[in-house]
């Protein structure tokens, strides 16, 4: 995989995540369903790249999402690092375990893996924030947040389908090897 292409894809994905957040936002009662624009791109890269690249792409993009979150606290906007980064790390571990047994050419793979990735990430984020709300000044309603995030994870599947249509033609430009040939041979990490 071309590192420059992966960085470019992540840069665009995070930018779109922050810019388009309001477009896909659905508010139902107390639920805020916000599918992730960027997660399918991270999942796509993690499914195709070498193990080390997949892990670092997920950790670094998770850290970028942490740093641009700005959760509200009693004393103003907070800054943190960790919940998304570790959530992405756990998500990457799942993807690396699962990718040997999936058909990467099938759009359903990206959809299902994106939803599963988001479930892992958002469950971890909810747990960490729930724990922090015990001793920190963060307002966090565990049940509402977790439900919203699971609904958001499900809705991410729709965006994953859209991303598959976009990413499929540009895959050769990103320097990936033939997907099916790569599974068994490359284990650099």
């Amino acid at each position, binding site marked *: 995989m071309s590192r420059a292409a992966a960085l470019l894809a992540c840069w665009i994905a995070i930018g779109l*995540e*922050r*810019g388009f957040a309001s477009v896909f936002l659905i508010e139902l009662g107390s639920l805020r369903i916000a599918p992730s624009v960027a997660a399918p791109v991270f999942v796509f890269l993690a499914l195709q790249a070498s193990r080390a690249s997949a892990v670092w792409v997920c950790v670094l993009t998770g850290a970028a999402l942490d740093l*641009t979150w700005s959760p509200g606290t009693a004393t103003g906007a907070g*800054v943190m*690092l960790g919940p998304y980064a570790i959530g992405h790390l756990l998500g990457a571990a799942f993807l690396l375990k699962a990718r040997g047994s999936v058909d990467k050419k099938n759009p359903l793979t990206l959809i299902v893996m994106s939803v599963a990735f988001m479930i892992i990430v958002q469950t971890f984020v909810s747990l960490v924030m729930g724990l922090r709300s015990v001793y920190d000044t963060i307002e966090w309603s565990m049940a509402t947040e977790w439900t919203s995030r699971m609904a958001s994870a499900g809705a991410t599947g729709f965006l994953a389908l859209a991303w598959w249509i976009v990413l499929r033609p540009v895959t050769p430009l990103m320097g990936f090897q033939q997907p099916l040939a790569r599974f068994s041979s490359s284990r650099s990490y």
Partner: protein
Amino acid sequence: MAQAARHPQWSSRLLTFVALMLLIFSLTPTRFTGWLAGLGGFVERVVTPVSHPASWLAGVMAGGARASSGDAAVDELARYETLARRLSAENERLRLLIQDLQAGVAYASRPVVPVVASVIARSSDPSSPALTVRAGRSHGVEVSDVAVVRGIDIVGRVERVSSRTALVRPITDRSGGPIDGVVDVSDGGTLRCQLEPTGPGVLSGPLISEYLGDEREPRLPEVGALVRLSDSAWPESAQMLVIGRVTEVVPDPEQPLRYTATVSPRAELSRVAELIVRTSPEPSVSGEGGER
């Protein structure tokens, strides 16, 4: 060969170290992680070339909340009404000021300089509706400045400022805390209300009547009535700006003689594409508009 074997081991150790550090950071209280704001600002600057056009496009797709309510006459009327009420409030303030001055208390009223700021990004997490706008310290923006749309509709307050950007926390954010307002009632008087963000894009809270007569019909605002800011925790220059419209008035289930109002901002705050930050030309010298 040996070098190739060492590389994965080195990478694995680095990853373990990074994961441990991230775990520690993720559990560290926010009061100790303020220094990470600089790093966050750097990430924001890096992704802004993508997020800004995307945010602009999102605003266009949402119909551009900055433009108008769709009815120019209604907007104009609301503007003049705001002006009249502000003059009335100013009158009252001056009357109290005279009292304060007579009592020996100095009080400085500050003018407002509007700074137009486009929304360049939203929070990367759905739990936070905070908006990042392109106007910062170099434009005169300070913490606690008030952001509005259409000139009079409050979006929120500035919570963090860098040299070129600012973070605005909408009034509908649950972490924003209560906000006091006044609303007209049908007989021409006003009621106070203490609103709190309770759901997506809405605030609600009890209506407080100072009238203790023996009337049978309670004095209630009509659905659609404007709720205006009247909160001493907010800058004086923001008083009487519009919080939103009353969408529902219902009896409090626990206290049937009391009523609760639900208020929705007139602009959809999560989809605002451009706003105005009301800055002060001079640094704050009084306690006005302190941080919550």
